[in-house]
């Protein structure tokens, strides 16, 4: 299929391009800009006038709920949701049931995803067997099966010695390690930020030091092991300062933040809104504001959706018993744009956080537009506002604190390997 995208405003942060340009696509790849290659006959012309054409979005955390948690969502529903959100590549955390700790599971997931012919899926291998923090997984085998990074989601290992050894082992083979900086003992039974809101609502709290102490440990172990470390889901201003300091020392540390944490605070819990039950918890206004700035000064490298489709039944419970997380892959672009608009930053700068920067963290050759690159492209209308409603979301999870809000940015076309995998009229 040969596709000609015409009159679109091409925004490619990696190549510092922001200009109206035509793109010619054939054989799944971008062939050229502005002038068609020899013998090009477009099977399809996409008129992208007044639209933004950017690299396909890359999301560092999308839960497909497979294997094992299919009652919450299925591979099909969430793969559809991803491309509807303009996401062409994403990493999925290993916290499935069973966890992604065996090559067979990873191969099955890759195979099932590939058959759907939609976004590229990058399973994150479990760092320890069963994610129990006791024994290392067969990382090399998992790598051969398709895991390019290894992680320990949701909480830091109880045993720092095991963590150090896991990091050393990963470093041996050049794998990067993705860690959620939350100390398991300090977080304990907490469900909300340790502040005035949790005090008023009587919710067990997670202190900021659960994050900062974990970051301190991770930073020191990174120094010790020379592994490439990625900090998943940072939530506090103090944690951010520590990452800033570590980066200044030249350590190979990156970090991301979720779309929820750059817009919401613990105040949004209101009267026990279980859609705001997240890990790490939504923290204070000042933490949120620091995260918004941290993205601009480069301390935070990427924004992810931390997509977690959850069944209504497990959200309709008292706050502390409700399932953690929110649907988000379809809100990645709108909430990134909203942040950019509020911070008055140019599009080319804010799109980096969901294109080329996450590609670098994942260590993949993607997230930019150039001749010979895979034609993974997102075309959206930045001026169109849409209302977040259950029926507007393709994800099986309808749970999000943003329900009812009008957000900017409507995806019009998503292309993966030169195929149109999603399109919408208006």
């Amino acid at each position, binding site marked *: 299929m040969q596709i000609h995208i015409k009159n679109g405003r091409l925004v490619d942060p990696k190549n510092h391009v922001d200009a109206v340009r035509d793109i010619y696509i054939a054989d799944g790849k971008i062939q050229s800009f502005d002038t068609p290659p020899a013998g090009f006959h477009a099977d399809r012309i996409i008129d992208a006038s007044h639209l933004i054409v950017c690299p396909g979005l890359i999301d560092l955390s999308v839960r497909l709920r497979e294997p094992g948690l299919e009652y919450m969502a299925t591979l099909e529903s969430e793969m559809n949701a991803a491309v509807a959100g303009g996401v062409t590549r994403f990493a999925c955390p290993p916290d499935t049931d069973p966890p992604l700790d065996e090559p067979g599971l990873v191969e099955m997931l890759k195979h099932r995803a590939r058959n759907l012919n939609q976004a590229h899926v990058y399973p994150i291998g479990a760092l320890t067997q069963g994610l129990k923090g006791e024994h290392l997984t067969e990382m090399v085998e998992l790598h051969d099966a398709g895991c390019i990074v290894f992680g320990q989601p949701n909480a830091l290992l109880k045993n720092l010695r095991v963590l150090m050894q896991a990091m050393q082992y990963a470093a041996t083979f050049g794998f990067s390690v993705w860690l959620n900086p939350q100390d398991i003992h300090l977080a304990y039974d907490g469900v909300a930020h340790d502040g005035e809101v949790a005090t008023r*609502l*009587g919710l067990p709290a997670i202190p900021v030091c659960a994050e900062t102490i974990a970051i301190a440990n991770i930073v020191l172990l990174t120094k010790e092991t020379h592994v490439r470390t990625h900090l998943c889901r940072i939530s506090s201003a103090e944690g951010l300062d520590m990452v800033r300091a570590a980066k200044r020392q030249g350590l190979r540390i990156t970090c991301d933040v979720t779309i929820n944490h750059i817009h919401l605070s613990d105040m949004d819990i209101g*009267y026990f809104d279980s859609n705001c039950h997240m890990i790490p918890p939504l923290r204070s206004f000042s933490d949120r504001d620091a995260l918004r700035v941290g993205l601009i000064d480069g301390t935070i490298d990427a924004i992810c959706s931390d997509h977690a489709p959850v069944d209504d039944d497990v959200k*309709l419970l*008292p*706050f*502390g018993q409700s399932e953690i997380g929110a649907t988000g892959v379809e809100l990645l672009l709108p909430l990134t744009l909203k942040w950019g608009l509020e911070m008055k930053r140019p599009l080319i700068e804010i799109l980096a956080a969901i294109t080329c920067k996450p590609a670098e963290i994942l260590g993949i050759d993607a997230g930019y537009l150039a001749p010979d690159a895979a034609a993974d492209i997102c075309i959206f209308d930045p001026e169109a506002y849409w209302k977040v409603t259950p029926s507007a979301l393709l994800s099986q999870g309808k749970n999000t604190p943003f329900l009812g809000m009008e957000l900017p940015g409507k995806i019009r076309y998503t292309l993966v390997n030169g195929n149109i995998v999603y399109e919408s009229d208006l």
Partner: protein
Amino acid sequence: MINRNPQLGKNRALQHLLTTEGLPASILRQILDTAETFMGVTEREVKKVPLLRGKSIFNLFFEPSTRTRTTFEIAAKRLSADVINLNIAVSAQSKGETLLDTVDNLSAMHADMFVVRHSQSGAAHLIAKHVQPGIHVINAGDGRHAHPTQALLDMFTIRRYKKEFHNLRVAIVGDILHSRVARSQIHALTTLGVPEVRVIAPKTLLPRQVERLGVRVYHDMRSGLRDVDVLMMLRLQKERMQGAYLPSSEEYFKYYGLTPEKLALARPNAIVMHPGPMNRGVEIDSDVADGNQSVILPQVTYGIAVRMAVMAILAGSQPSDGSI
């Protein structure tokens, strides 16, 4: 997004009693005044009024309780309501039924009011949000969050002994962190105009930024009790000694237990309150609990009138002056 106070209806009348936080002083006073009219009922020979005849009140206790459940039951019966007690801790929930399924099933049996106790903060809010209009929810304690009828009966007790709120110094002593009673007391006291509310506890038993609730924080009983008019003691759960909150009940008693010597630091006519059940020798000395400044037993008596008042107001059946 605008979150309307879920306790109040469109006309600002009380729909549910979930917490004392955010309720206007006028509603708190209305409850206390109505309870006052019921005091006569509880003292006479035929202790019944027909205000809630034909109404069904379900006591939904997801957490064990004897005292609170009993006083709600007595209050409902004195209003002539039909009372159904459900001890859910050992029935539906253990069979896997969800909280809201349980509520739906009971609503289908034409419940008019639910009295709910649950170990999770926010459980009563969840139910109130879920039930059909016209069904009322009373929070009888949710996790660490709120226990509004306890706080209201405490306010009733204070008003009976001290008449006014605006000239009082009140100290709440003990495990503030885990206490729904303390939270509800603080909001009720500040709303009713008490100028100085103190909390006294070791740092392990105080929640973060508790001063934002409008209280002064003390760690030392000797300075915290000085010149107070009302002492509200809290129950210390034995589990706190198993975690790392406290080293031992003996050490706790030494520094935070209310003894006659510490009570002497308060105003001479100060009253001593406790929501029960008491741990004698842990948070309170028997000489104080049984002493002449203790109003702990009157609290229990008043609790019935206050719960009658809450039920009557929610059902829209307040007594007019001559009706009882």
